[in-house]
């Protein structure tokens, strides 16, 4: 591919992405936080958050997106999400069982209502979003390097 790819796609795409990337990220966070009340949840929300960064990278090229979320930061968040989720599971041990839902359940339909479920949702979305962005970055960097080598 030509040099031009570094700077991302055409102007029209860039202006549209500048408008929509924030909305996509917000929508992903909404899906994650309301996972136990409305459809969606840790996985769908996490993938949407990951997709917003992928969207940014496709439109603006590699270096802008990596400026926002670098490779080290994405692997840090992924590990953090994984350990958070395992930590929540281990906290259940206090109450006697592995994945016990030990926090108070609160009354339904409220945001902070379902014990460990929202916390697990947040941990999973961190992990899924950062992990998938890490995969995409790894595949893109590999492709660019192979072009330059040939």
């Amino acid at each position, binding site marked *: 591919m030509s040099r031009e790819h570094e700077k991302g796609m055409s102007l029209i795409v860039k202006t549209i992405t500048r408008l929509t990337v924030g909305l996509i990220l917000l929508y992903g966070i909404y899906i994650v936080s309301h996972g136990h009340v409305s459809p969606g949840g840790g996985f769908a929300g996490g993938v949407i958050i990951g997709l917003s960064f992928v969207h940014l990278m496709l439109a603006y090229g590699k270096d802008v997106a990596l400026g926002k979320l670098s490779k080290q930061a994405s*692997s*840090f968040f992924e*590990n953090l999400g*994984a*350990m958070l989720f*395992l930590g929540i*599971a*281990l906290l*259940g041990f206090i*109450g*006697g*069982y*592995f*994945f*016990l*839902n030990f926090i108070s359940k609160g009354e339904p339909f409220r945001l902070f209502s379902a014990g460990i479920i929202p916390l697990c949702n947040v941990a999973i979305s961190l992990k899924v979003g950062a992990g998938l962005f890490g995969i995409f970055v790894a595949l893109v960097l590999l492709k660019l390097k192979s072009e330059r080598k040939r």
Partner: protein
Amino acid sequence: MNIASNIIPLFVVIPLAGAFLISFFGRSIKRLPDAMGVSVTLILCGLSLLSVRLHNIYGVLTYSVGAWRPPIGIGMVLDGLTSFMLVTVNLVAFCITVYSVNYMEKFTAKWKFYTLFLLMVGGMNGVIITGDMFNFFVFLEIASVASYALVAFGTERHELEAAFKYAIMGTIGSLFILLGIAFLYGYTSTLNMADMGVVLSQKGIDGLIIMVSIMFLMGFGLKAALVPFHAWLPDAHPSAPAPISAMLSGVLIKSLGIYALCRIFYNVIGINPTISSILLFLGTLSMVVGGLLAIGQWDFKRLLAYSSISQIGYIILGIGLGTPLGILGGLFHLFNHSIFKSLLFLNSGAVEYATGTRDLRKMGGLAQKMPLTGTTGFIGSMSIAGIPPLNGFWSKLLIIIAAVQAERYIYASWAVLVSILTLAMYTKVMKYAFLGSLSEGLSRIKEIPIFMKLSMATLAFMCIVMGVLLIPGISDFFLQRASEVILEGTEYAASVLRAIR
């Protein structure tokens, strides 16, 4: 649900926590991956020996995750077969981790290797302890995905192509298993193995269950490299790093393939004559085909891979007989095979580490320069060939006697023939690799580092000592318990439900 059963979830939590910690600190602290890997597998090894003792004291232990009774939530079960498999897996995993401390110096990104290795061990432990069908599939998939990436760890041309072929066949196998689980869920509408066994015994066996059994046979046959589905094993082994091919054929195809076949066909669906005759036929077929193909190989690891297929055939023949002696022989051979086959693979890795080649024709007289590798290789080859004092002899003897008792004379004669073939195969390996004159290019090779020697010595010592497991005093603590679980068949459901209450 007494305090002792809290040990069961540790088998999955510790490797996963270790893997996450290694990938978190892996890059910064240089020696952490090795230390973490060895310590985690050591703890797991100790826990598995403890689980054998706990099972002897308390009988069948169950653990319900998240305080939900198993048919509702996910249950974990620790019975004779589980503790037997846990000891096999974690013992061999510990020796292989000690070995790979030195061997992996030749590879870059060591922390990624240890993360994937601990995830594979965690996946296998998860498969062994779980009592829930879908959870069984999820942990089977963890162990498989980790092993696909580990086979391609060297990123050379052949390794990538072999890893791709293994990944495609593994994914097809897993999807057949998932479709089988979907059929079973539609039919019994429950996922807990014990509960499913109860529903299946009430509903009886009809067309759907036969089809599900065939699909499971294909899926788990592919994971266990039985003959019609063995195509990936001979390519995956030569290209995988030595500790991984030792792990793959020593433990992975047993816990994902054979343990799964035993658990589902004996305990959940209940064995019927058609399934057991298919198993016997496939076992003998893989025994013979594996042996015949192995004789002609000149690549050390490819020969070991084909001989793995034929030894898996022995185990399936033993377990497929269904008689008490046959099952005892099959399980004992499973335990022995995972010890001496991983020893032989580590041996081939040591030879490759020192001489850089795997081709038997280029080697010669290594025993003079590498005494320990020579002796451990000799012990491993003799025990797989079935020379009396070593452990391989006893288990093969049991299988052949059981086959004769069950009036399966054709299968028994094939078993004897293939064991002679194996003896010839391994004398060829010994002659070309270790004995004979030292070829000129290899004069300056030196012995392998300390950790590799340590792990091979322990495995060789176990090869010699494990014959003792058959003595009646010791066997009913360990082997007898495991074969009782398979013998009792669908009473598994009753014993698990009794343990839950």
